């Protein structure tokens, strides 16, 4: 038994095999760490695309208000007066320019929707039109992977009729 414990033949192979196993584990963990960076790059790109899309839709919403401000005021005030939101939905939710789907170069889909709110200041006869665009990146199965929100406030000065 003592002779067996003191035996040293073949120890070199055991040592080298242990070291090799340790090095392989190190290399494997290094490769796994490296594989995380590619998904991070894609998230960075998708977030940037969602932000730019949101900014663009804000511009389209601002142009709609500029072309048809009265219709927005009527719809919003009717909704606030408790007369239903059908006209406001027609102005915002059912507008396919302000709500829809966009695809980027990788065929990733982004769903965008627009809301507008009226912030009234009676004392100074000014209104703030708050435009909120929500952009959601969708997976192939339709799950939301990323949500970005762009907000902009337009100032409108009221003139007496």
């Amino acid at each position: 038994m003592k002779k067996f414990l003191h035996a040293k033949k073949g120890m070199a192979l055991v040592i080298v095999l242990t070291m090799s196993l340790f090095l392989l584990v190190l290399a494997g963990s290094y490769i796994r760490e490296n594989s995380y960076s590619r998904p991070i790059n894609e998230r960075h790109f998708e977030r940037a695309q969602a932000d730019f899309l949101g900014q663009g839709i804000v511009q389209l919403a601002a142009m709609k208000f500029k072309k048809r401000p009265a219709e927005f005021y009527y719809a919003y005030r009717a909704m606030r007066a408790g007369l239903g939101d059908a006209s406001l939905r027609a102005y915002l939710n059912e507008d396919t320019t302000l709500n829809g789907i966009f695809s980027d170069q990788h065929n990733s889909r982004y769903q965008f929707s627009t809301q507008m709110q009226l912030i009234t200041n009676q004392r100074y006869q000014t209104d703030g039109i708050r435009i909120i665009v929500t952009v959601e990146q969708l997976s192939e199965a339709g799950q939301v992977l990323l949500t970005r929100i762009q907000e902009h406030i337009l100032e409108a000065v009221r003139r007496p009729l």
Partner: protein
Amino acid sequence: MRRFYRPLNNGFSLIEIIFSVLILAGTMIPIAGMMGYGFEGTKRDQRQITAIQLCQSRLNQAMSVSFDALVNSNTTIASGGQVLLTLGDVTQGNTSYNVSLQVVNRPVSYRYAPVDVNSPGYLVDTPSTWVFQAPILLDINDNAAKTATIIVSWIDHGKQQSVELSTIKANLQL
């Protein structure tokens, strides 16, 4: 006397050394290859991040260009001696990137429900007197909006790579 007798079998034999070196070489060479691959992957990701950042900065510049000046271009857009948008070849690090702008006309169609101001009993300050008509569409096909896309391309190990970001510019002067 027997107690002090020790068999002379300490140390490593030549065969053990040879096999150990062979096993170590067989392990280290692929690991060195994988480390090199990982390093190359890091450099590739760095180039992609640089391209995305370049794309972002150029698209931000494009958003501030006037609606009429936003046109397809591979060269810098300038007006009145002032550079509005820098395009063309850009070198960052050891990589040369080509930045170009693609612009496509985007028709818009706005939906709304008009109010019949000629209806009897209509009062401008009384919502209950308002009569909303059926929703209609306001179509503007030309000169309403443009989809601007910045394309950054570069060569990576003989293959062309590219990154594109798009946004929409509305003609707020319309």
